[in-house]
């Protein structure tokens, strides 16, 4: 009994500290990164690290950030997005955001992010538009 309880509790903490998943897919010079879960200060560190590694290995990468799986995002998420935008620009790439879920719409709107970055409704639309813009 006692053992089972403590295992359950440990699992809960595990879930809490690993509350974000990042999956990336590369299509030529495009990197498509999808975030699922909660993007806060805690989970932002890992996202920043993994994306920066990819961007440094392949300079000139264009990033498409798919946010459709996000259930939560605060100003820490805005910071990660803006930080990657600056980095990509400095390395000669472009960046777009696709699929803003309802849960984070208001934060995105307040931030004015849409004045700086391109937003698209789908990955295919982003790819098409970005490829078109590159010629």
């Amino acid at each position, binding site marked *: 009994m006692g053992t089972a309880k403590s295992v359950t509790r440990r699992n809960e903490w595990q879930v809490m500290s690993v509350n974000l998943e990042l999956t990336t897919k590369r299509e030529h010079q495009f990197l498509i990164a999808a975030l699922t879960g909660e993007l806060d200060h805690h989970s932002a560190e890992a996202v920043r690290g993994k994306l920066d590694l990819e961007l440094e290995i392949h300079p000139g990468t264009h990033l498409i950030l798919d946010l459709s799986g996000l259930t*939560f995002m605060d100003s820490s998420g805005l910071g990660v997005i803006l930080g990657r935008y600056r980095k990509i620009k400095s390395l000669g790439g472009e960046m777009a955001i696709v699929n803003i879920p309802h849960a984070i719409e*208001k934060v995105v709107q307040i931030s004015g992010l849409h004045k700086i970055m391109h937003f698209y409704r789908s990955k295919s639309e982003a790819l098409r538009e970005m490829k078109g813009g590159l010629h």
Partner: protein
Amino acid sequence: MFENEMNLSFLSLSENESFARVAVASFVAQLDPTLEEINEVKTVVSEAVTNSIIHGYPEKNGYIYLNCKISGDRMELIITDHGIGIKDLEQAQQPLYTSRPDLERSGMGFTIMESFVDQFHVTSEEGNGTTIHMVKYFKTSKRAIYSEV
């Protein structure tokens, strides 16, 4: 009128950000808020707690205190740290002002908190810590409808 209150204190570790959000969100669920209102509550908790972790206790971990009162359709939330405090409150509350651009902060936290609650107030003393006081009304709360009858 339905009333309830809770207090939490926890260390300034980033692991506790989601813990604090979930704790407050499930506590205020007693007022039957909408998903959107729950999300706003989670966001303001996250902003205040993250500020205490990053800015309040930049070097040594300390405690963050969270007090939440609900009554009728009203939530009152007080989040306190005993960290380094804020020297210039007016400057700190300017949209886009951040003292830590090196950490990729963008100075939006206070602006987001202000726009997600009905009343917002910061008190701070350099060297003594910071307190965020917020009040939010759940306009679509079932309890709000009942109390009007």
